[in-house]
């Protein structure tokens, strides 16, 4: 039996009629160092250095909002995010390589709201899902090659956002005009 704990992601692409045209599901290998930097700050109730999505080292400290990745519609600075970059993941990544911003212009996608579900226990697993859909109303096809999660965070002084997960797809996913892509991340612990 394989150990099923960890982070999993799935990608579903639909055309303008809602028909599924591509799917990918994999174990994410790309929980980033920032995830654990925030965890350290919370567990030890202290501060440590951490580069925010701004590219500036504003640090990580304990905070009520730490790890918040619940996102409202049109928010492209928090929650699940997608991009066109394919640069290999490194432990110190602090943002996507080439993020797709919210909108309907060229190379943009509309970001829908995203709320993590409640944890559920099945057998020896406890997991919860967070999902976000991006609509392509740009007038042209957009090829997605990466996804990730941006969360709220705070350093000793400044609030900000941190990239805690980044994955590069094994297969680039072309989203046709009028279509959508849905990214699901499942965080699971297994006893």
């Amino acid at each position, binding site marked *: 039996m394989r150990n099923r704990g960890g982070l999993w992601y799935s990608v579903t692409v639909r055309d303008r009629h809602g028909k599924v045209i591509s799917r990918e599901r994999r174990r994410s290998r790309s929980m980033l160092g920032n995830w654990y930097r925030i*965890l*350290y700050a919370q567990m030890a109730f202290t501060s440590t250095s951490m580069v925010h999505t701004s590219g500036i080292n504003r640090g990580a400290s304990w905070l009520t909002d730490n790890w918040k990745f619940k996102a409202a519609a049109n928010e492209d600075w928090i929650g699940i995010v997608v991009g066109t970059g394919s640069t290999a993941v490194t432990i110190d990544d602090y943002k996507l390589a080439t993020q797709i911003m919210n909108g309907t212009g060229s190379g943009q996608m509309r970001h829908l709201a995203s709320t993590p579900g409640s944890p559920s226990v099945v057998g020896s697993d406890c997991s919860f899902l967070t999902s976000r859909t991006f609509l392509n109303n740009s007038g042209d096809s957009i090829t997605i090659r990466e996804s990730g999660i941006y969360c709220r965070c705070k350093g000793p002084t400044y609030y900000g956002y941190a990239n805690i997960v980044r994955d590069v797809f094994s297969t680039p996913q072309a989203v046709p005009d009028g279509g959508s892509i849905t990214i699901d991340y499942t965080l699971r612990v297994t006893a």
Partner: protein
Amino acid sequence: MTKGTERKQQPRKAPKKQGRVLKPELSYKVEVTDKDGRVIAREEGPSRSYVQQWNEIFQLQGGDVTSGGVVKDVDGVTQTSAYRSSRSFMCNAGIGYDRTGLRVGKDSTSVSISDYALGSPLAEGTGTDQVEHQLTYFTGPSVVGSTLSFTIQRSMVNHSGSTITGIQEIGDYIEFTAAMYGRVALGFRDVLGSLFSIPDGGAITVTYTLKVTA
């Protein structure tokens, strides 16, 4: 002491679960020292045993939950008003404080996802089967190659007057917030591969390493 007993202790290996593929993102080391500080027993291995409260508290944070979260505390009470907090996961327990931080116990029941406490944790003190909990010590995150890790460590000293036998479980008690600060939940628990005994005047030191590899 004979030469044979002076040889460096070889780490015991945790029991393997056959057929499992494990990426050891959480691992532990346990060392017992005698009153002179000599290591007399040691075990290390991968931890497989985050329990459900870990994910539940993480969901409070990720989901920006402001009320109504459900987390069972170490007393077995299901708290139904849990919410996100700056104190979530906090376990930097001080000297003599056994409500949070790393704990050891004598229960050997296999870990279950629904475990909410150690089965039989040793209490703080100098009485029978009690230990004195030392400061919980962290090393900060460090990156080596494509891996980031940090550690949490705590020693527990036996001044009970006699050997404490049968120690077989370790785990971490972490804070969360529900209606008020200071609720405590089990974050992870491991059952050791063999029984440990702490001689009078000796100590047991538990170290967990939390690691992520990109």
